[in-house]
């Protein structure tokens, strides 16, 4: 059995790559020389010093961004390997331009011990397509009754810093307070799935015009906003870091804006689907549009975009939630919540934010790489360093993206084991051409490189 806890496999031995003429963050074209896992040279001069054995990639017309970082991915392994595995999920991530993903804790067994988080971390290293950062459960078994061994997970080889009961809300105010306090000891952050459980008992769709029309139990915005407001106040009270998962309502954006104006340590994410889709789509009861939190209204979408543009919402996170066909090929009410998203995230963000003029490519890099890396504590020291600027000396984690491409999303072509993409049949801009993880290509010409 190979020991995967040792030094990084053979990245130092990778042949160098010279990337020619990529537009760094959508700006001026430059060359990038990748060698020894790092960006050895960046700028117009790089071509002059082509080392022996270097491979050349013509990136004319492509945009270079730092490798994307997802704070919210469901890889389903262990337990639901029929929906996704670390192998297939990280393949999907690489194809989407990601070099690091945070694997949510709601696996079976739950990632609530050092043993499980280390297992997931090692599976990620073995797959070798992107860094897998396990998220630890806040409470044992996600049961919401007592704290999991957060310190043991933090001290494990997986070095967990983000903790979440995602899928369930830590609704007990005392438990949430203690969790926020406790993780201060190791610079952790609690990522909250904000959903007041009593207000959302049996909830199926956004409470509003559609829930009334369709006769489906409503998921009111206040159930999210009330928890966010409470948690912001708790984080301020104990001086800790709160991260709000998948913000979905206009009111949530307002509360987070207010909390940030106080200087409190509150960060937030929004999913690509909440930036692009509205609850009109549920009219035919197709469960591919069933997600938690639910798709909201056009006014919410506008507020989320504005919040992401002005930085109130720090980052985009996919909430990639693969499900097997039979979990969606059913009545709406019994269908699983969740959508895949890794392979469409950057394209959806281009459609929602760039084509609309709300963000430039430097802004996209900030919201999809730099800031999520900071929130996930991947900006410090150690091998798993992400969100770094595309300059000489940075780890060679980057994505080359063709913003001029445009085609119809076909989930059958996805590397994810599951097909529940809400963008199926939609035309989206963009194409991930290549992804590099510490100088090694994981994707070339839009296909897996290994």
């Amino acid at each position: 059995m190979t020991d995967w806890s040792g030094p990084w496999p053979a990245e130092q031995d990778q042949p160098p790559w010279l990337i020619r003429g990529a537009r760094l963050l959508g700006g001026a074209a430059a060359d990038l020389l990748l060698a020894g896992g790092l960006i050895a040279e960046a700028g117009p001069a790089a071509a002059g010093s082509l080392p022996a054995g270097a491979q050349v990639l013509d990136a004319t017309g492509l945009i270079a961004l730092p490798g994307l970082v997802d704070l919210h991915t469901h890889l389903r392994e262990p337990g639901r390997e029929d929906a996704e595995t670390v192998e297939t999920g990280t393949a999907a991530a690489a194809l989407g331009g990601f070099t690091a993903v945070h694997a949510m804790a709601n696996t079976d067994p739950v990632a609530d011990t050092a043993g499980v988080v280390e297992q997931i971390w090692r599976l990620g290293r073995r797959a070798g397509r992107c860094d897998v950062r396990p998220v630890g459960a806040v409470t044992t078994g996600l049961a919401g009754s007592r704290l999991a061994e957060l310190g043991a997970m933090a001290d494990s080889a997986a070095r967990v810093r983000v903790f979440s009961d995602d899928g369930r809300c830590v609704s007990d105010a005392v438990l949430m307070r203690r969790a926020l306090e406790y993780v201060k000891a190791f610079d952790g952050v609690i990522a909250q799935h904000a959903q007041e459980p009593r207000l959302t008992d049996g909830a199926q769709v956004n409470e509003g015009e559609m829930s009334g029309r369709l006769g489906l139990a409503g998921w009111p915005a206040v159930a999210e906003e009330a928890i966010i407001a409470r948690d912001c106040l708790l984080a301020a009270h104990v001086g800790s870091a709160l991260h709000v998962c998948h913000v979905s309502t206009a009111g949530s954006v307002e509360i987070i804006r207010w909390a940030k104006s106080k200087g409190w340590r509150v960060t937030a994410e929004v999913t690509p689907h909440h930036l692009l889709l509205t609850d009109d789509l549920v009219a035919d009861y197709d469960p591919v549009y069933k997600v938690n939190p639910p798709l909201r209204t056009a006014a919410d979408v506008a507020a989320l975009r504005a919040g992401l543009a002005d930085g109130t919402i720090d980052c985009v996170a996919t909430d990639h939630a693969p499900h097997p066909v039979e979990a969606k090929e059913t009545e709406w009410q019994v269908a699983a919540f969740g959508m895949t998203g890794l392979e469409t995230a950057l394209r959806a963000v281009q459609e929602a934010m760039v084509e609309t003029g709300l963000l430039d490519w430097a802004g996209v890099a900030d919201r999809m790489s730099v800031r999520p890396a900071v929130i996930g504590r991947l900006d410090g020291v150690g091998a798993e360093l992400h969100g770094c600027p595309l300059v000489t000396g940075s780890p060679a984690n980057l994505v080359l993206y063709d913003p001029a491409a445009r085609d119809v999303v076909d989930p059958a072509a996805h590397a994810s084991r599951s097909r529940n993409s809400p963008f199926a049949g939609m035309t989206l801009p963009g194409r991930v051409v290549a992804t590099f993880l510490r100088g090694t290509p994981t994707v070339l010409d839009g296909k897996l490189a290994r």
Partner: protein
Amino acid sequence: MNRHLISAADLSRDDALLILDTAEELAQMADRPIRKLPTLRGRTVVNLFYEDSTRTRISFEAAAKRLSADVINFSAKGSSVAKGESLKDTALTLEAMGADAVVIRHSASGAPHRLAGWVRGSVVNAGDGAHEHPTQALLDAFTMRRRLGRLEGLRVAIVGDVLHSRVARSNVRLLRTLGAEVMLVAPPTLLPVAVGGWPCEVSYDLDAALPKADVVMMLRVQQERMNAAYFPTVREYSRRYGLDSRRMALLPEHAIIMHPGPMNRGVEIAADVADSVRSTIVEQVSNGVSVRMAVLYLLLGGSEAQR
């Protein structure tokens, strides 16, 4: 007409009137010594019932049999559903058996939409969750027209648990299509939050609504609402939103009282009101058979059938 009847919104004004007129003709037949028509001979109608509803199932069964269709009753209890078969697999099974129409009753809103994607035959919604019950709305409209002679401009008060009521949703849509004016009367807890966008008026005050109503339709209060803080007590609900003889006296002389059944006597409707001459509750049941005959006839046999 559409191939399916899933929502009252599927029906244009002409479609709805055609169903009501056809039902009227078919109703005449009920008085004849032989009540059977050969129209749907050789066609198969499946009653796929995931929820107990004896009255709706036998109404559809009687309707199909009077049109000479073969009827298969498939109920969730004692079938493969109890073993966890999916709706899709059940649909494919019915398809393989050659069902020309599937009448579906299901506790999940939208189940008929899903079913329609998996079978070639016509899907008739016999009630899906809190979504719709279009044949109930049709039989209600049929009953109103028979009693009051028109639908255009009729003022209909629908009273009670609108939030969870498929009957209310279908009636609001159909009555709007047919030119009636609907007022929903309920405690605020039992109205959808966005009810303001519905094509009807809304009131919290039953006493104020009654003097203007030509029709008052009482909705059943489900047992499970009674302990979920929608209202403080059953007694208080009954006092504020129940129809008793004092309130009945507030109605105009000609007004009728409807209930889709089954009733909670003493809760939303007092026994003497339910049994009064103004009550159409028993008529609604017999009208249901005629209306469902018309729906099956028009969906399955209408074009090629001999009258």
